[in-house]
């Protein structure tokens, strides 16, 4: 069945080159990936915290996929602007949308746009080198920072704000962010959630990292854990272990050694529960934030479904930095693509976009912005399976040939858009790594699209000289060729 399938060579393209895009591509035979930026990997590059390099190992597998002759990468192509979804649908038998969640949920309270208030999405983009966030330059000249939200992104931000810069300077955090953090006056980070300890969205790994973060100590409030112990026994293991660790942190007297460590710590972090933002407080001339007014909540119901209900009591917290980390949000790409604006996803069945044959979605656009990389991996594999099934069953007609990238490349050329190939990305990659090497970092990211593109115009020759050995390229080509033959035999 696969032989016939490969003869008629169905053309598939993917929009977005984050984990969802690459995990979907991994299961498709011939695929083109379009990416708005000149550089691939989406949130692995721009979302995963710099001090989590292990998580970025997935890039190695993505690179293998992208280097394969069956996969082509077209960076610097803004689908929806440079080329429309409709044009992609005409050129390909199947189009998979995996452009993620680039928007953020807003708090919807007065003062949200004051200076000193940032979305976690922008703050993360800033320290991770996302070109559109480089102007952020957050003001860290205050003692207390409040983070709204208690998910893993909130903890990433807290960790970056509090971590000793000696640790951060060995990561791929951007140089401007590192310099700002070295100067930072932030000594106290409050991580605020509208519900209780048993509803936090973070996972235990991230919480344990906070507990173990050098030069910091937790300041949890014992009262928050009243009655929690009794509810523990009925919880599923992940929630139970996380709650136990939080309780231990809040209630138990630490060992002597830990007490000594904590007493020397210069920075403090704390979770605050049952608090929702009402208003962001401004200084007298209304130019920047000086604090936040929080509603005190109580819980109605229990477990994951518990609802936060305001008690009527309010509480003001002084802070000079406010980061809202209450969730990412997918945005619609084209009026022709169904979009559920309430859930902020593309309505789908196993990745098949509703009422639109040949159109698919994967990743956060499909499920909403939750879950770890393995979650995205599984849901992307599912989407790829749906694509393959539909082509085999004839739901998607692949009998007539489609031009694929050929016609799209023509359109892009007409429109003056110059796509960045994967080997071009690898040149940027090499440059970033060699720049990083000079400063003891794994990578020093290029921070603007212009810089990335400029680099490609003169880099070819220099890089060739740097690598020094032309045999490397020849051998690489031969190995590639041999392996292709081998795989064809295996089929």
């Amino acid at each position, binding site marked *: 069945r696969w032989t016939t399938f490969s003869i008629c060579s169905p053309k598939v393209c993917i929009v977005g080159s984050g984990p969802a895009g690459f995990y979907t591509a991994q299961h498709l035979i011939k695929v083109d990936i379009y990416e708005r930026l000149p550089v691939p990997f989406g949130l692995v590059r721009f979302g995963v915290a710099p001090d989590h390099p292990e998580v970025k190992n997935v890039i*190695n597998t993505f690179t293998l996929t992208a280097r394969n002759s069956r996969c082509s990468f077209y960076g610097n192509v803004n689908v929806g602007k440079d080329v429309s979804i409709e044009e992609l649908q005409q050129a390909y038998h199947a189009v998979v949308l995996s452009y993620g969640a680039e928007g953020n949920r807003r708090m919807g309270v007065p003062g949200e746009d004051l200076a000193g208030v940032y979305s976690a999405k922008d703050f993360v983009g800033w320290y991770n080198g996302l070109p559109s966030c480089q102007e952020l330059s957050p003001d860290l000249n205050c003692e207390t920072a409040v983070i709204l939200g208690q998910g893993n992104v909130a903890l990433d931000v807290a960790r970056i704000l509090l971590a000793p810069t000696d640790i951060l300077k060995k990561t791929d955090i951007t140089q401007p962010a590192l310099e700002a953090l070295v100067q930072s006056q932030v000594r106290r980070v409050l991580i605020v959630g509208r519900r209780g300890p048993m509803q936090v969205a973070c996972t235990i790994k991230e919480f344990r990292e906070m507990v173990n973060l050098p030069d910091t100590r937790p300041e949890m409030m014992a009262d928050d854990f009243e009655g929690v112990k009794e509810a523990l026994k009925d919880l599923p293991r992940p929630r139970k272990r996380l709650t136990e660790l939080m309780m231990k942190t809040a209630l138990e007297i630490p060992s002597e050694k830990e007490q000594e460590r904590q007493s020397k710590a210069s920075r403090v972090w704390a979770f605050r529960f049952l608090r929702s933002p009402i208003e962001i407080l401004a200084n007298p001339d209304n130019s920047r934030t000086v604090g936040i007014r929080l509603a005190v909540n109580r819980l109605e119901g229990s477990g994951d479904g518990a609802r936060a209900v305001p008690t009527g009591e309010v509480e003001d917290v002084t802070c000079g930095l406010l980061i809202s980390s209450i969730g990412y949000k997918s945005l619609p790409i084209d009026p022709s693509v169904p979009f559920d604006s309430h859930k902020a996803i593309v309505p789908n069945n196993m*990745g098949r976009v509703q009422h639109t044959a040949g159109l698919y979605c994967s990743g956060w656009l499909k499920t909403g912005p939750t879950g770890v990389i393995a979650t995205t991996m599984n849901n992307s594999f599912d989407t790829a399976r749906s694509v393959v099934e539909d082509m085999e069953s004839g739901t998607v007609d692949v009998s007539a040939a489609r031009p694929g990238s050929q016609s799209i490349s023509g359109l892009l050329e007409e429109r003056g858009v110059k796509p960045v190939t994967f080997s071009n990305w690898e040149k940027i990659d090499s440059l970033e790594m060699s720049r990083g090497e000079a400063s003891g970092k794994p990578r020093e990211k290029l921070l603007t699209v212009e810089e990335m593109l400029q680099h490609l115009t003169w880099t070819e020759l220099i890089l060739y000289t740097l690598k020094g050995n032309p045999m490397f390229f020849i051998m690489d080509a031969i190995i590639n060729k041999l392996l292709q033959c081998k*795989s064809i035999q295996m089929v």
Partner: protein
Amino acid sequence: MALVTALRRLALVRLRECSRRTAAVTSGAWLTGQRSFTTGTQSLRSDNKVTVNFINRDGEKITVKGSPGDSLLDLVINEDLDFDGFGACEGTLACSTCHLIFDEDVYKSLGRVTDEEMDMLDLAYGLTDTSRLGCQICLTKSLDGIVARVPESVADIRQSKDGSS
């Protein structure tokens, strides 16, 4: 899914080729992190090998031999076993994709589980009381003949339950 398998194998073979080649290519190599995958262990005599029986997601039994000291993840990679998405973080305890399930008596013989491994296991699909991460289990002669089951991903379960997402 022959072609998918082929692509996966190709990727794995390439991966191993690459890890071998990085030694020769000092700068500009695309590998950012240290690979924890071991590459060849042919030097050890075959009678020193440890037999492991994997049960894949289709319920099929796959028997392979590994060398003491290798992790179960190493074994999956070295033997090119086609378990979808297995070992995404390459054995750095940053994901839960090398999740394996054991019989209780085998589980008990695998030794202590660290908090960090438990933390990652908590994110694994189909977590059981006898779950472990393959990257954290090193082969020893005493584990000869063990059975390790690759759990179904959540999507598979969901698919067979109600056919929707």
